[in-house]
């Protein structure tokens, strides 16, 4: 009955199929509501009818193991994280400990990922690098989220001059290819973890502001905003109570992808000598170092590369999972 439904009631069943699954973001209900067409006159039968079983609001935690994509993401991410944080307790050579005599050893039981030129254990460095890389990734996502939410909400909600000013600045930053922006900022701030995080975040922030702004614009016309307006709710109330909480989910989709990208951009910066400084290992600089030895010692860059892939893929999975929960139509 809703125009959003594919033929043969496809989506309706698609939706029904999720009844027993988590309702991660209750917006999916609302999405449908938006599509409900005005019904004709007298004597209508049938409209979306509530299911027999009352739905249970399910927490984010539950989502992580009920949603298939999210489950995969967790199945990959958790062991990786666990290993990374348990690394100091594992019987491995310390990540910075070198042993020139054991240079470029192929993977073995003693060194599952082999050793690098300086005889350091690549697995140990990789595990340590995961922490650094994830720190970079998550910090970037957090910074982008924080700026995106504040400026995007203000811009989208107030519109007019405020909007034009914020978006003007955003457009300026968006005019630079992201890597350029990062290179520029690292040039100003110098290399190192914090500058790298700022540099990558700098190109994400305007994107997040844009995203948040568009989300706010679409939410602004929602009926529940009107409902609050009819009781003269102040604007700060509308933003804090009604708008921001409903933009979090789509922002999280973007954030999980942004953190995956940040990890990869850090690798590119490392290649240009602008990333995280060795000997502190990041996945990026391990790969960069190993790239030079690709012909003699494939393992140095390939194995940490595979780890980056796994992390990035699982972050993509996570975002797909969130997206699916947001949009029942995306479900396979």
């Amino acid at each position, binding site marked *: *009955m809703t*125009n959003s439904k*594919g*033929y*043969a*009631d*496809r989506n*309706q*069943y*698609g939706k*029904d*199929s*999720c*009844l*027993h*699954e988590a309702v991660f*973001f*209750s*917006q999916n*209900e*609302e999405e*449908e*509501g*938006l599509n*409900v*067409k*005005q*019904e*004709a*006159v*007298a*004597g*209508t*039968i*049938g*409209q*979306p*009818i*509530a*299911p*027999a*079983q*009352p*739905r249970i*609001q399910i927490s984010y935690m539950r989502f992580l193991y009920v949603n*298939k994509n999210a489950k995969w993401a967790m199945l990959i991410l958790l062991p990786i994280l666990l290993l990374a944080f348990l690394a100091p307790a594992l019987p491995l050579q310390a990540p910075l400990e070198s042993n020139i005599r054991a240079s470029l050893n192929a993977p073995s039981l003693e060194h599952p990922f082999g050793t690098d030129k300086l005889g350091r254990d690549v697995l140990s460095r990789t595990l340590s690098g995961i922490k650094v890389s994830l720190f970079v990734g998550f910090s970037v996502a957090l910074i982008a989220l924080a700026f995106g939410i504040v400026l995007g909400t203000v811009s989208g909600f107030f519109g007019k001059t405020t909007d034009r000013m914020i978006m003007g600045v955003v457009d300026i930053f968006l005019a630079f290819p992201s890597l350029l922006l990062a290179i520029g900022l690292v040039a100003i701030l110098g290399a190192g973890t914090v500058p790298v995080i700022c540099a990558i975040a700098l190109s994400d922030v305007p994107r997040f502001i844009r995203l948040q702004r568009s989300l706010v614009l679409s939410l602004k016309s929602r*009926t*529940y905003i*009107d*409902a*609050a*307006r*009819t*009781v*003269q*709710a102040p604007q700060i109330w509308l933003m804090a*109570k*009604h708008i921001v*909480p*409903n933009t979090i989910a789509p922002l999280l989709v973007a954030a999980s992808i942004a953190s995956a990208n940040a990890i990869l951009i850090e690798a590119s910066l490392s290649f240009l000598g602008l990333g995280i400084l060795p000997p502190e290992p990041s996945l990026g600089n391990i790969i960069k170092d190993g790239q030079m030895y690709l012909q003699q010692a494939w393992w140095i860059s390939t194995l940490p590369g595979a780890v980056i892939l796994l992390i990035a893929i699982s972050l993509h999975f996570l975002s797909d999972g969130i997206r699916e929960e947001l949009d029942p139509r995306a479900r396979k």
Partner: protein
Amino acid sequence: MDKGAAAGTIDRNADIPGSANQPLLQVRDLHTHFFTESGIVKAVNGVSFEIQRGERLAIVGESGSGKSAMAMSLIQLIAYPGKLVSGSVRLDGKELVGLSEAELNKLRGSAIGTVFQDPMTSLDPVMTIEEQMVLPIRKHLKLGSKEARKHALGLLNQVGIPDADKRISSYPFEMSGGMRQRVMIAMALSCKPKLILADEPTTALDVTIQAQIVELLKTLTETTGSAMMFITHDLGLVARFAQKVAVMYAGKIVEYGTVDEIFNSPRHPYTQSLLKTIPSVSGEKRVRLLQIQGFPPDMKLPIIGCSYKERCPAASERCNNDSPELMPRQGRQLAACWLKNGLMTEGYESITTQLSRGELNALTKQERVNTADAAGVITTERSALPVGANEGDATRINAFVADDANIVLQITDLHKHFKKTSMLPWKKDSEIRAVNGISFKLRRGETIGIVGESGCGKSTTARMLLKLDEPTGGRIELNGNIQIVFQDPYSSFNPKMKIAEIISEPLDVRKIGTKEEKQLIVRELIQKVGLDPSYLERYPSQLSGGQRQRIGVARALALNPTVVVADEPTSALDVSVRAQIINLLCDLKEELKLSFVFISHDLSTVRYISDKIAVMYLGEIVEYGAAEEIFVNPAHPYTKALLAAVPVPDPKIEASRSIELLKGELPSPAAPPAGCAFSSRCPQVTVLCTERKPALQEYLERREVACHAVS
């Protein structure tokens, strides 16, 4: 149903293809399942029926009853993960199940034409009409491109598209919804199909356009001799249009018969209840509406026994174990119920009592049925009484008696014009007059209904009343507090807030009361709208549409309003729930002496609830006055046309009506016709009408009408 159908198997070679006596379409024991990740949804679960040549069969059912899936199964266009599992579909004796895609493609669009619900989305937006029409014609009729275009033009003319040779090269977005639906019909007809499948073809359209399309379909099937299978949830349309009716419930046909049989002597409890839950346009008395309890079954779970047993007041032990098949009743009528006459076992009137009893049973029997339904039960006790027999009648009579002391809302010459300015200096600004000078008064305890087609300005008026939009002219004087119940119970709540927070939000914003006081008020409110306070801890997504709409009402009541604007409060709801909400609003009106501004295009509901009516057309009120009088004796030609366009769920009335269709479509509000706004579509138009705008003048005693012809 004949014996073959009951047996479920037919010798496939028994029928000679094309024989004259043979039905056009024979469907036997059709099963279509959707293999979703969380289980198999048996959307179509053993459907058998026949369509004769030239016959119009209506399929009626709630959403989720499998009617669309069934229709798509006939041409085997079921999207993944759906699959036709078993059964037989014979067109002219030729078995369709098991044909290859290529063979099916030869039939689709030629022998079987299809018209879909939403013309806005069913045409390819980036292709011209010509591009979309010509290729299938060339394919099926083996015509050259020029002939195919000529053929397409002929079809467009046939479906009443003016300037067809120009329109054929336009894009769908350049056409109105009605025009698009005509194009869809032309496409479905393009290869002289033997059968047309129409899936809710008018649901997305306005009433006057709906009437046009229905007439068109009727004429076309009559002239071309095509049979038609017509899916709808609108019983009025069924009465107006169908010859045969099949009622679907939970993937099965539960009742089948001629349109007269179904409307006059329904046999299945479901059909019987449905017909009782709708307010009637022609009904004089305000009788409390009935409601069907419960929800349809979960189609993923196996259904043991009758699928309707949980909602059926007459369900017995047998219904729990054995599933009734379609069994012949009188004539060709079939029903799937163990009881011969369903709820009418003890006579026609017993349906009401049975239903009421059913509501009681539902309450005591099953815990999961919420107290919302119980609210209906308590009031049903006095349901036989006309609502507002004492005070309500008094208000009605006094509606036009001046009593300024009691006026709670007065709007005078209200305007809302939207301006669109262009960047280029040589381009003129365009102006849309959404609301163009309307005035009315509302007294305490009175309900005014505002009706009109989409785009007439009724929602803009509501937004101005609530100060969501600033008027560009005129005055709104309000005595007290105004609140609103929104149309869409799905989007009018923040999905991240609990019900308690939603109801108390107005109090929180206004900083009324302490935490404890607020809790108390919220509990009181939710009980007032007939829900259990345990719902306060839930989220909107955990509530059904009807329950949400009750919450919407509770929220509107939080600040003790004197006026409540109800903007299409029932149009997004299922019919039984709709009845609940209307009942609730009526109760509150009485109990709290509330005044309502009731906005709707659903004329029967408006008539049921309103004391006064304002009919709007292009931002102006064309007729204004007491509700009953306008409905019984409409004065303005537009009001007349509007009322005529609404189909009545009674085949006898429909058959006897001579329907005067409105010509054309709603003009753009950016460029309204000169003179009377209605002049472009009015059947009684004169030269005067195109020159001078008629003012709203008193007509008879208690009405105002803006028409040169009337005054």
